């Protein structure tokens, strides 16, 4: 199929429709507005439903209801709006409802700003809702990857009966790149025999609920969920390695930051400094095992983020105390430059000799 030039927000919307998403519930917030706008235009054409809810809280609960029918559903927002959805995400995870939630994040805390940021790493990977729950987090670095992962997200959500987050930032949402909408690969998905679409007096009613007052029952449910999360950790983790051979410093970065980091790595290579990159594509599950493949030429790790340092916690867990772990980040909507990253690497490289 031909490539088309699209804005990130619209490309994610088009990918969702390609994946069979028919219903969207959301509330406007910059820098993700083109996504609901796109859905409001396109979903009615395919007999789908677009609802601009009265709030983010309402939207996520509409997702809960619509997901209960087994339909493919999506909501999107940006950082403070996703914060408002956290209660609903916990309920969705508890009730095991599949859905895709897109966060085109911006600077925080609070209302923050509208420029790109990665300060929602904790929110995405640890969750802001209550209880023992997890959800997969995809962090695309290019628009093509955003398209591919959004399509994948719907299958993963259905397969595991779990919410899936696609985490971009303002840059992914606003920029344009050529994208191609490939036919999604066919996955064997279980029948949705749990939906609340009417018994037609042929079966016992299905119940979708996250309330369980009997502690023994609730523990059983938690153990079942945990087993599912362990399977996801085992099977769905994804990452990319870049120029790892003989790397003396290994950088860890995701999303748009990883693109800037690659520029820095290429420029450092020209200066004769070997630097590699581990790019997590899933933030949860985090690619801990990838760190076992770090070459023994490596003297130090550097986590580069558009935050004050959040992913660095996972880098430290993955590192198991073996190498010094450094951090470089910008926040509030400021974007790191390749030059500043290069300088930081040289500082570490000089010190690590």
């Amino acid at each position, binding site marked *: 199929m031909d490539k088309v030039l699209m804005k990130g927000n619209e490309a994610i919307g088009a990918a969702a429709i390609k994946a069979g998403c028919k219903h969207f519930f959301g509330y406007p917030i*910059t820098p993700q507005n083109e996504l609901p706008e796109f859905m409001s235009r396109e979903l009615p054409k395919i007999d789908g439903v677009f609802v601009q809810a009265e709030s983010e809280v309402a939207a996520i609960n509409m997702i809960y209801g619509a997901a209960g029918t087994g339909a493919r559903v999506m909501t999107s927002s940006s950082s403070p709006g996703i914060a408002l959805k956290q209660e609903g995400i916990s309920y969705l995870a508890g009730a095991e409802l599949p859905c895709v939630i897109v966060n085109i994040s911006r600077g925080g805390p609070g209302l923050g700003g509208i*420029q790109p940021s990665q300060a929602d790493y904790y929110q995405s990977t640890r969750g802001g809702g209550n209880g023992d729950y997890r959800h997969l987090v995809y962090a695309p670095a290019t628009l093509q990857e955003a398209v591919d992962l959004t399509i994948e997200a719907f299958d993963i959500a259905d397969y595991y009966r779990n919410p899936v987050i696609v985490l971009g930032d303002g*840059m992914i949402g606003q*920029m*344009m790149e050529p994208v191609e909408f490939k036919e999604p690969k066919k996955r064997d998905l279980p029948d949705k025999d749990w939906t609340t679409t009417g018994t037609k007096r042929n079966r016992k009613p299905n119940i979708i609920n996250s309330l369980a007052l009997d502690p023994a029952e609730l523990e059983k449910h938690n153990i079942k969920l945990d087993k599912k999360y362990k399977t996801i950790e085992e099977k769905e983790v994804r990452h990319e390695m870049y120029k790892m051979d003989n790397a003396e410093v290994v950088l860890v970065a995701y999303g748009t930051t990883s*693109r*800037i980091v690659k*520029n820095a790595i290429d420029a450092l290579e020209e200066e004769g400094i070997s630097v590699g990159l581990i790019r997590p594509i899933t933030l949860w599950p985090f690619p801990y095992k990838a760190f076992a493949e770090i070459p023994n030429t490596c003297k130090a790790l550097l986590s580069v983020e558009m935050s004050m340092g959040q992913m660095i916690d996972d880098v430290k867990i993955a590192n198991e105390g073996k190498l010094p772990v450094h951090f470089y980040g910008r926040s509030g909507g400021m*974007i790191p430059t390749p030059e500043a990253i290069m300088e930081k690497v040289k500082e570490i490289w000089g010190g690590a000799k």
Partner: protein
Amino acid sequence: MATEKIIMAGFGGQGVMSMGQLLTYAGMIENKQVSWLPSYGPEMRGGTANCAVIVSDSPVGSPIITGDATAAIVMNLPSLIKFEENLKPEGKLVINSSLIEKKAERKDINAYYVPANEIANELGNSKVANMVMLGAYLELTKIVPIETVIDALKKVFGPSKQDLVPLNKEALERGANCVK
């Protein structure tokens, strides 16, 4: 051509965003790797607007252009003041001399002066000043042929506005003639 990194800037309404999208689109048609990144913010009518376009033979890394722009197309004075420093040495600075009296300050870059609004007005439509600027830039770099930009334009305009294609083509050519 290795990688062209172009900053396009002006005030809202001068068509800098669409000029950038058009070049990006044309680059895609030519099978180049491309990206378009707009500035976005709480902008007001008449405020400044800019976008960063990358056209390359290899995959685009960071879509942001910091101090390494190979070219800047500036449509108004604040844009000249803001973006002249982002050019790398030998970079091309295309200045809309209809609205900017100031000259480029740096000596290590190449400045070109294009009276874009005057030319656009001669053509009978002030809105094509952006195409005059783009035409000049294309002549200087040859990263994509003008014909490809026209192809892109036809797709962007859609069937209802094909009558605007000849005017835009002429604007591109007049811009190119300015720097020949």
